[in-house]
């Protein structure tokens, strides 16, 4: 299978767009989208939300090929924000800040505003990494002491699950798109899968040796991908808990994983600035991007447009970068 090519589409810079040519020549722009590291990127069907170590959350439109900045949620998190997640419909977003606060946002006609009612219900939520169900109803979080909890946002934020693990720092969490499973990754290398129905662990997974930084369910929920400081991506079969494959090729800590809509490709980003695309079919790396030497904290696929797939990345170079599949690739 030929290797695939993804062209840098352009880099968002406070709403200014740089043409394809310029972006290729100067992939790093001097004027960043955020003044400090971008730690988390969330995608809806029309927008990309980015959260950084600065107080504001930025919203860029993906409907326009120039990815203009359409909104800035100023003062969202005083000390900066480390996680932001959205449901598939893109009507609700949840963000978690460095001061320990969790906030809810609601979107109407492409415009985001603070959801005071839901936010008020989240004041006592103890979570570091967070995930939102496809319909936006359930928020899952894993805490610094390793508890995995679920809250029902349509029922006053009532906590409906609390799973205790072995107490290792919870670094990442994901909900399967069908809503059947929750997975969490921990600093001690442990990976857990819980059934949402009864909260039980159907099997224990052989985890990783070093801290896990990202866990992600495939669109069909059949595969869980996990990766972190051991620099390898491990694929688990969610029906048996067995390892299907190890994808190796990164030479630094892996920070982020994202599945394409079709489940054909897995995207990964690492601490040394590399972004890789993996074919699940062949279990091999089909594209590597190294536009920066600085950590890429978050990489996410964009909704498929015009039969070509694309993705967005954000990290320590403080810019959002957009890529699309090269035609004929």
């Amino acid at each position, binding site marked *: 299978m030929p290797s695939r090519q993804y062209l840098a589409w352009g880099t968002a810079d406070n709403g200014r767009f740089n043409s394809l040519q310029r972006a290729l020549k100067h992939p790093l722009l001097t004027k960043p989208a955020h*003044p400090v590291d971008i730690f988390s990127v969330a995608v809806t069907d029309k927008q990309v939300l980015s959260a950084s*170590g600065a107080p504001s959350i930025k919203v860029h439109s993906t409907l326009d090929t120039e990815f203009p900045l359409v909104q800035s949620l100023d003062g969202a998190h005083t000390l*900066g924000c480390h996680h932001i997640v959205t449901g598939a419909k893109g009507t609700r977003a949840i963000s978690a800040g*460095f001061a320990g606060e969790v906030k809810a946002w609601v979107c109407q006609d492409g415009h985001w505003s603070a959801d005071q009612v839901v936010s008020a219900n989240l004041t006592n939520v103890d979570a570091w990494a967070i995930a939102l169900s496809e319909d936006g109803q359930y928020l899952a979080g894993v805490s610094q002491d390793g508890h995995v909890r679920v809250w029902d946002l349509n029922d006053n934020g009532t906590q409906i699950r609390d799973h205790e693990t072995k107490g290792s*720092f919870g670094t990442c969490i994901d909900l399967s798109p069908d809503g059947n499973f929750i997975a969490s990754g921990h*600093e001690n290398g442990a990976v857990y899968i819980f059934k949402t129905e009864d909260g039980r662990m159907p099997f224990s997974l052989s985890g990783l040796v070093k801290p896990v930084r990202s866990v992600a369910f495939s669109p069909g929920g059949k595969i869980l991908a996990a990766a972190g400081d051991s620099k390898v991506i491990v694929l688990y079969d969610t029906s048996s808990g067995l390892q299907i494959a190890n994808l190796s090729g990164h*030479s630094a800590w892996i920070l982020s994983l994202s599945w394409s809509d079709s489940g054909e490709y897995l995207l990964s980003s690492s*601490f040394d600035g590399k972004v890789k695309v993996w074919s699940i079919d062949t279990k091999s790396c089909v594209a590597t991007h190294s536009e920066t030497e600085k950590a890429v904290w978050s990489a996410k696929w964009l909704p498929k447009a015009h039969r070509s797939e694309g993705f967005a990345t954000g990290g320590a170079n403080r810019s959002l970068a957009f890529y699309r599949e090269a035609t004929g690739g």
Partner: protein
Amino acid sequence: MALRPISPQTALPDVAPDSSVRAYIDNALTTLIRELTSSPAESQPAITLRCRIVSANCIVNPINGALEAVQRNESYRTYSWPGNTAYESWKFSSGNNSCLVDDRSSVAGRKVDIKKATVNSVIDDLAYTIGVNRLALNVEAAGKGLVAGSLRLLRESRLILSAQSASEDNLIPRIQDTDEIDVSSARWVLVIEKEAVFHRLVRNNYHTRALAGKGILITGKGYPDICTRRFLHRTFEAETNRNSRRLPFYALVDGDPHGLTIMSTYKYGSLAHLHDNAGLSLPPLQWLGLKIADAADETQNSSGELSLSLTTRDRKKIVSMLRRSPIWASDGVEPEWCAELQRMLMLNVKVEIEKLYGDGGSLENWIDRKMFRQR
């Protein structure tokens, strides 16, 4: 009658003319003796000190690069005798003891052991009240900072310190206004957080063998004392006045909340001595390391892990630092420091310098490479 403080001077002299300190002490003693000799019913021996500004709104002064207070809301504290409690009496006497020191003796280590923090705080307030640097009171504990390398210190044309001899470190002395620091043969200054790292570098003669040429190694052994900061400030001033050559100052600290706070204390000053920072800051200080990315790079070449997990205390300290503008805020003077604190939280890791010198000369080579890249 309580003593009123002398009106504050806006800029504190480095070492006050003895007269202002002596005048204050004479005045204070006269008043106290008068109070003590009057009839017990009427006597109210008391000393009122102007308190230093501790938790005010701070800014980094763009002119001198020092951390300073915005508002000067003065507050005063009166120490009277006999107090309502034994503790108050004790505090009164410690305040008095501080006053009774003449300029040839040092009180360091005498009464100071048991409630050192309290005495320290009283002494700081006393210096602030008189309007001098605490060095002028001769109460500064013996300096703890060490220096080695290409420098000479001249006092009245006499050489009082030469740190050039190999494999030898010297206690950083109390610098006087007329002292002359000669660093003309040094190519760099490395400010080191940890004493053990300093000793290792001195033992290996890094100050004469560095790739960047001869240099100066300095450590304040953790949080630096005023002598060490003053010494660095004067070295920087001497350099700026002398010629256009830029002597680079590098900081080598642990990549943890304490290491970054120590670096900030050297560069901008401390919150406890806001009024002194202008004479103690080191604006050109550059961050050599250690950063998480350094550990990540080095991990490629070694089998071991170079990072440690943060403790709950570390995480709390980082969050409280991030709240403290203007130095640590994301829109503050050091966005890269802020970003590094946030990266520590994200990855839940910290990095320590000792981890870099497991085998052979890796620490020295690493410093050579970093200095070369930052030049």
